[in-house]
């Protein structure tokens, strides 16, 4: 099985971007060669890695982070003070269901979302969100890769959508997978056209006990291997998921 080790940002200025994210999430940070790491001092939430690496410009990012905060309006101001920028606050409503999200950018233009559901005590990464063509199928791949349960969305939500006049394919326009112990982050998939950049601004890094066996298993599940690289301390393989999103297994 894979376990999520890092969310990795490709940056022009790893120090600057790591400073932004560490301040936003209450993480500590440390240099690691020319990269920076930002880690949760409570040991609860996922570590962020900031590499100096090329990235392509995107219109719609293929992968982004959804951050939960106690107070969305206060967090908006905080993000602006830290050097981020605002895209817009969006609300959606489908029949009785509704939600509000503020879309922002970090200092290097990476889009992310802020939400403030009830009982949120501190800022944390809640979802890693994939824009994709087939949410259900891609969700199933990642559940298998991570050893997470492959659970369907609650049918009563679909019924609420239907009652409000939503048809296919919009009813199946999203999917969600999470660890059985409820730990964060969740992986969220929504049907959305995305940019297909040469170099992704963000990708996921995973650890595993037996890299070679794991890669065989992932390829059988629909991933494809790009290449295996030998680092000084670590050998890792770059793969793509069934919709082309790159990820690393070390």
């Amino acid at each position: 099985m894979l376990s999520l080790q890092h969310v990795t940002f490709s940056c022009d200025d790893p120090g600057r971007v790591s400073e932004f994210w560490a301040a936003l999430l209450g993480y500590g940070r440390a240099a690691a060669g020319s990269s920076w790491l930002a880690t949760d001092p409570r040991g609860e939430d996922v570590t962020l890695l900031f590499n100096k690496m090329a990235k392509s410009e995107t219109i719609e990012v293929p992968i982004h982070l959804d951050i939960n905060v106690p107070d969305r309006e206060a967090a908006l101001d905080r993000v602006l003070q830290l050097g981020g920028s605002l895209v817009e606050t969006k609300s959606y409503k489908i029949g009785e269901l509704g939600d509000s999200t503020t879309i922002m950018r970090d200092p290097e233009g990476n889009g992310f979302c802020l939400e403030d559901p009830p009982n949120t005590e501190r800022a944390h990464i809640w979802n890693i969100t994939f824009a994709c063509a087939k949410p259900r199928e891609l969700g199933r791949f990642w559940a298998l890769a991570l050893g997470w349960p492959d659970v369907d969305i609650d049918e009563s939500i679909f019924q609420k959508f239907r009652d409000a006049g939503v048809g296919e394919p919009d009813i199946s326009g999203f999917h969600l997978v999470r660890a059985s112990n409820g730990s964060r982050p969740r992986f969220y998939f929504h049907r959305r056209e995305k940019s297909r950049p040469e170099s992704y601004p963000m990708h996921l890094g995973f650890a595993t006990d037996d890299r070679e066996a794991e890669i065989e298993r992932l390829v059988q599940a629909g991933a494809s291997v790009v290449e295996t690289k030998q680092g000084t301390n670590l050998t890792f393989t770059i793969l793509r998921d069934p919709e082309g999103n790159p990820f690393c297994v070390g």
Partner: protein
Amino acid sequence: MLQLLNITFSCSDPERLAGFWATLLDYEGAPAGDSWIATDPRGEGARLRFNRMEKSETIEVPIHIDVNVPDREAELDRILQLGGQLVETKSHSIGDLSETWTVMRDPEGNGFCIQSPPNTPPHRYIGNVTFSCAEPRQLAAFWTEALGWPDEEIDQGFLQQLRDAGVAERDLSSLHAIRPPNGGRPRFLFQRREKSRPESYPIHLDFRTDDREAEVERLERAGAAVVETKEGQNLTFTILRDPDGNPFCVG
């Protein structure tokens, strides 16, 4: 110059789709050979044409229509009764600015928006033809030249409001509109949005012109690419693509 002749839908059932849109917009539908046409009896709105033609599946449509209506909530229910579907009602706000619209689909799945902006006339009409594109200003510049429509400068006060709310420079250029000089409709609206690039577009625009060959040459110089020229029974027309790859016809 080009003049907008039709907004053309590729569909599997032209009569059914023409009926939906004619009822929605208070237009009149009529068959035209194998196709159907829906026209505004007031003589104001753009004509719609429904051709039985292949179309590819899309996630984000490259071109869609924004319909302005007097009462968005009432219209939502009416459209569901006509056989349309709801995607979602969306609001966005940036600082003090805010807007609400409802995204829907027609019976063949084409996404469109309904909205009730302030001072909407008491009837339904097509407010915008909206293009998803990488660089709204650049694509708008091409269509300004193609149509001879003046470039509509965005109000500096409005941009300053966005800046004050914390919007970065790149996002300030994510929207651009051009409109006919006489205040006619529809506007062409360009938004920075990733779009599907289907083999066969579900919606495209047809234009007429006085001198097709000269016009095609002029459009090529402005950045369009010719796909092919077709000889119909009564009409010769050329299929082109705009600089962003959106197909359109000039007859």
